[in-house]
């Protein structure tokens, strides 16, 4: 199923103010793969993810999603395939109730009412938030917001999922259920996070970024246990691999 493939070829991206945020990015994600992106603040993770469905377009190089090369013309098609969850769920929930928000995408896909309800129901149950359906998003706790944001993307049944720092502000239990949810999502996914333990748990493969470049790419178990590689890149061992010295 080639439509679950993501390929970056020599991608450079420069923000209009001259910041070189991506340089020579080159990788390929095949169907069903789960890839973590890690790196210091400002390394370019969010910028990379924003190329996944054409919010940003490469300054040079090509991004291919499935069989389709990302261009201004194709990006509308591509957005139907790739679901992106942002760092801050507040930015993502713009409709006045949880139901409206989750229904927004499916409605725009042109589905009929019954299927829209079906999809909303489905997506909200996956994240265990069915009882929130009539609440306005600003009355939800941080963790509930994240869950709904994920549901609103899931309701579009994307082939590829991209998430930017999904676990920030979640309590440990919610973080754990997010991990479970991510593990059950069978399609390709790409996750940017500072939570190296989450990456280690969810992603088989890991990409390390630094100053807009990919500096390492390989199995998470290997990369995330390579202390000197991590420290060179302003990271450190996942906490679960650090030995705790008890007081």
């Amino acid at each position, binding site marked *: 199923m080639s439509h679950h493939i993501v390929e970056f070829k020599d991608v450079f991206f420069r923000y209009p103010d*001259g910041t070189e945020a991506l340089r020579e990015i080159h990788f390929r994600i095949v169907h069903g793969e789960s890839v973590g992106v890690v790196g210091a603040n400002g390394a370019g993770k969010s910028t990379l993810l924003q190329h996944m469905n054409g919010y940003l377009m490469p300054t040079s190089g090509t991004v291919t999603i499935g069989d389709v090369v990302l261009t201004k013309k194709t990006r509308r098609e591509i957005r139907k395939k790739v679901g992106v969850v942002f760092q801050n769920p507040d930015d993502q929930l*713009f409709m006045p109730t949880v139901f409206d928000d989750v229904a927004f995408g499916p409605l725009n896909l042109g589905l009929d009412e019954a299927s829209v309800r079906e999809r909303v129901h489905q997506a909200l149950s996956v994240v265990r938030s069915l009882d929130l359906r009539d609440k306005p998003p600003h009355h939800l706790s941080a963790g509930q917001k994240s869950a709904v944001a994920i549901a609103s993307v899931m309701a579009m049944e994307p082939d590829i999922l991209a998430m930017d720092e999904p676990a920030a502000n979640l309590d440990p239990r919610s973080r754990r259920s997010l991990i479970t949810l991510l593990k059950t999502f069978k399609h390709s996914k790409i996750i940017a996070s500072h939570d190296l333990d989450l990456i280690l748990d969810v992603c088989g493969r890991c990409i390390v970024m630094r100053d807009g470049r990919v500096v390492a790419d390989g199995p998470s178990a290997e990369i995330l246990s390579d202390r000197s590689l991590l420290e060179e890149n302003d990271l450190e061992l996942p906490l679960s691999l650090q030995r705790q010295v008890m007081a």
Partner: protein
Amino acid sequence: MTFDERYFDIGRLDRLSYKDTCVHRLDPRAKVIATVMFLFTVISFPKYEVVALAPFFLFPVLLMTVGEIPILFIVKKMIIVSPFAIFIGIFNPFLDTRTAVVIAGIPVSAGWLSFLSILLKFALTISAALLLIATTSFPAVCHALRRLGFPALFVSQLLFLYRYLFVLMEEAMRIIRAREMRSFGRRSTGMKVFARLIGTLFLRTVDRADRIYYAMLSRGFQGDVPTLKRSRIAAADLAFMAATVAFLAVFRSFRVTEEIGRIAQELFL
């Protein structure tokens, strides 16, 4: 201009103002006053004046080069805002067709002169305003305004506006992207969704204002936003002002350009 472009644009202008050149180091008050004098002088030229405006380009060019401001950036921004002035001015050539001058045998109508004059004044005034910000920074301009007698309340909230401009624009940008991501260019860019979207943004903004207020209280806020005096008028500032005044006075009072032309003609023709 698209949202992103506008956003990046003011971000860029803002970054330019944090450079450190001798123009940037001048006292903000000196630059504000000089800019206002410059603007008034340019505007005070009569309707049909074209030639005498030429020397005034020295002012923006000096600020731009000494202040290391990229010229293309300023020109681009000027072009973006030009439509209204052009729209109003472009009627002049059609409405005012009397011949004003004959140049090399070709009669030029007064309307063209006044249109050209509008364009030149536009370029001069707009570039001066942009360069003020690009070489001074918005907070510094605000502090200068405060010390030039603008009401404290106005200036304080102007500073808040500047501070949160970027935060909120980024927020709006992410909301737009979320909407785009799930709307596939269909419907839902209409007015109803728009109103709710703006409403959501508004409510969040009000909540944020509350949190900011708490943060201010926790740091001893008692109704006045205090600031340190950060600059004294120095000799360099006085010199800059004096030079500006002299420059403006000379080129406003004497038709220097034409004199130069006449001398050149006598020498070479």
